[in-house]
């Protein structure tokens, strides 16, 4: 098996995919407004003609490199390229103002590479063992797993839990469109034959994440028609770049702690890179001998947040590969990709499809190392991309979105699906309804329905009693209840604390 894996890894296709993924991810991450979710959904159709391992290595390289790219614009122009780099912006920009911007980027490079690589190693070691859990699951458990994924991502997405769950329920409804698997009856197709097999996942994802982003960018019309050259992009970056070995050893506890936090946050469905970065940052501040420097140009702060956000990437893929529960919005898109490629997450990913899965995981580890090397070589120049005008980027994204959607089935109807989801995605964002639970609902809908309908048959009567007679179901029901109630309880506690503070 390993000979096959190494032959897969060191093929020209995989190496090219790695390089394109790393550089593409860094550039997209550095562009404020564009993010990894959009890039991964946009490039998913490109993977159809590639070997699945090469395609997924490219997508995962984009995922991890986008977080790193986001830190470059955060440090040099105080504009986080991705939300996950917000914690880096304060300290990084302070250092830039002191003429130490290059040193901050150097720290971010080492920290991102360390966090990402360690999360890849965690993925390689934890995922195979965890995947065996899926062998204990039957239809009722799969139904509850789908509900669990939705409740947790819905509960954590955005400020309003109701809107998060509403987005999830909407996605589940969209998942029912098409031919019913049991009765063969058409549901909500309204005469469109192309909807018989349901809503195409990839065009829906491209619409929700890419077209809606183009529309959001269009709101800044005044900025588009009067582009102002971003200050800081022409600054010649001189001085020290990489930290010394002594400094890295001194920061080792910070790097390891932040990696563990990031991996753990990544495993929790719904908690993304921003939470991983802020938690790591806050813990590093508590542990630091110089907490007063945090927010005023602390290299320790940059180290923590950048290690934390990149460690989330590998962590979020663990529940995705083992149980089919994505740990982040990007992981939701990756789940869609796996399903389109005929790879169903679970134990078979580490048995029947082990060659492909291990190639992807080791490729992900290599992507993180390559990201560090490429970062050392080109990071100081990547910042120039923030001056690419929206008037050039937007048409390019629209064309790529349309052709990417068409490429899935060679069917123009899919491009119309992209359009519809584009406008839905835009208004969802305007109404502050998160799109990630909708995509997850659409992805998990068929699994939830099959699980539920089969368990109704298996129950032969009282469904509730049947669910409560299965120990794993009871555990999952408790976990679902906790995942729903915890955000409510923390909101109430925060409200009372605020009232107490005002009194």
């Amino acid at each position, binding site marked *: 098996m390993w000979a096959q894996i190494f032959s897969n890894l060191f093929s020209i296709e995989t190496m090219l995919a790695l390089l394109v993924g790393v550089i593409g991810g860094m550039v997209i991450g550095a562009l404020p407004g564009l993010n990894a979710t959009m890039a991964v959904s946009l490039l998913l159709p490109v993977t*159809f003609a590639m070997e699945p391992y090469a395609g997924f290595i490219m997508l995962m390289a984009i995922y991890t490199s986008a977080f790193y790219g986001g830190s470059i614009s955060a440090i040099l122009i105080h504009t986080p390229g991705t939300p996950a780099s917000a914690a880096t912006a304060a300290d990084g920009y302070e250092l830039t103002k002191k003429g130490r911007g290059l040193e901050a980027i150097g720290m971010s490079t080492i920290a991102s590479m360390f966090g990402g690589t360690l999360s890849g190693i965690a993925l390689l070691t934890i995922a195979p063992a965890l995947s065996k859990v899926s062998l204990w699951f039957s239809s009722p458990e799969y139904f509850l797993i789908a509900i669990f994924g939705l409740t947790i991502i819905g509960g954590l997405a955005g400020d*309003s839990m*109701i*809107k998060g769950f509403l987005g999830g329920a909407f996605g589940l409804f969209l998942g029912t469109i098409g031919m019913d698997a049991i009765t063969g*009856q058409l549901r909500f197709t309204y005469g469109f034959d192309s909807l018989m097999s349901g809503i195409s996942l990839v065009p829906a994802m491209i619409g929700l994440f890419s077209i809606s982003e183009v*529309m959001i960018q269009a709101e800044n019309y005044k900025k588009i028609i009067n582009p102002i050259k971003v200050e800081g992009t022409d600054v010649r970056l001189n001085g020290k770049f990489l930290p010394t070995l002594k400094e890295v050893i001194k920061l080792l506890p910070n790097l390891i702690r932040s990696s563990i936090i990031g991996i753990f946050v990544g495993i929790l469905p719904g908690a993304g890179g921003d939470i991983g970065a802020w938690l790591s940052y806050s813990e590093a501040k508590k542990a630091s001998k110089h907490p007063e420097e945090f927010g005023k140009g602390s290299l320790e702060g940059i180290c923590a947040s950048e290690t934390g956000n990149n460690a989330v990437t590998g962590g979020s893929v663990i529940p995705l590969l083992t149980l089919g529960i994505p740990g982040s919005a990007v992981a939701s898109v990756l789940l869609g990709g796996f399903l389109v490629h005929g790879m169903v997450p679970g134990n078979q990913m580490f048995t029947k499809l082990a060659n492909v899965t291990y190639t992807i995981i080791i490729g992900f580890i290599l992507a993180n190392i390559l990201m560090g090397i490429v970062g050392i070589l080109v990071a100081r120049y990547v910042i120039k991309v923030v001056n690419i005008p929206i008037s050039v980027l937007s048409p*390019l994204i629209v064309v790529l979105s349309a052709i990417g959607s*068409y490429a899935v089935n060679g069917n*123009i109807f899919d491009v119309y699906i992209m359009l519809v989801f584009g406008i839905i995605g835009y208004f969802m964002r305007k109404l502050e309804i998160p799109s990630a639970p909708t995509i997850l609902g659409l992805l998990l809908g068929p699994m939830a329905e099959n699980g539920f309908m089969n368990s109704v048959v298996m129950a032969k009567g009282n469904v509730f009693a049947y669910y409560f007679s299965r120990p794993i179901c009871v555990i999952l029901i408790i976990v679902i209840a906790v995942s729903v109630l915890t955000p409510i309880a923390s909101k109430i506690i925060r409200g009372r604390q605020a009232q107490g503070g005002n009194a």
Partner: protein
Amino acid sequence: MELSKLHMDVYTGGIMTAIGLYFFIAACRLSEQASVFPKIVLGVFVLLSLALLVDGIIKTIKGNKESHSIKFEEIKIPLITFAFTTLYVIALNLIGFYIATLIFIPSLALFYRQKSKIIIMCSTLGTVLFIHFLFVVQLKLMLP
């Protein structure tokens, strides 16, 4: 109570409830077995929409203005951009990828007041060649 003072969630909850009820009624027309799961999902959807409506009413009463209403001025340009995109998709089907793209990219760039003709020309030709190379040469896809 003035409509303009209503919290945005009141409108969102109201519209979502109406959409949910419409599809719930449509689900009721399906056969019993095919309608079980859609009815459960749409039932939950309607309940959540009603919860959002009530939440919006409470926020309105409390005078919470954290969520501003959507003004047409704010969404005008995004909607025009969407209209450009829709026309492009229709053109893709009617006149094919190459001509549609050669018209679409300069049109949207000019709408965004991109003044440099060289940038427009390079980005248009670059995109067409890139997509031709990637999808036609590499992926062997027949473009529309």
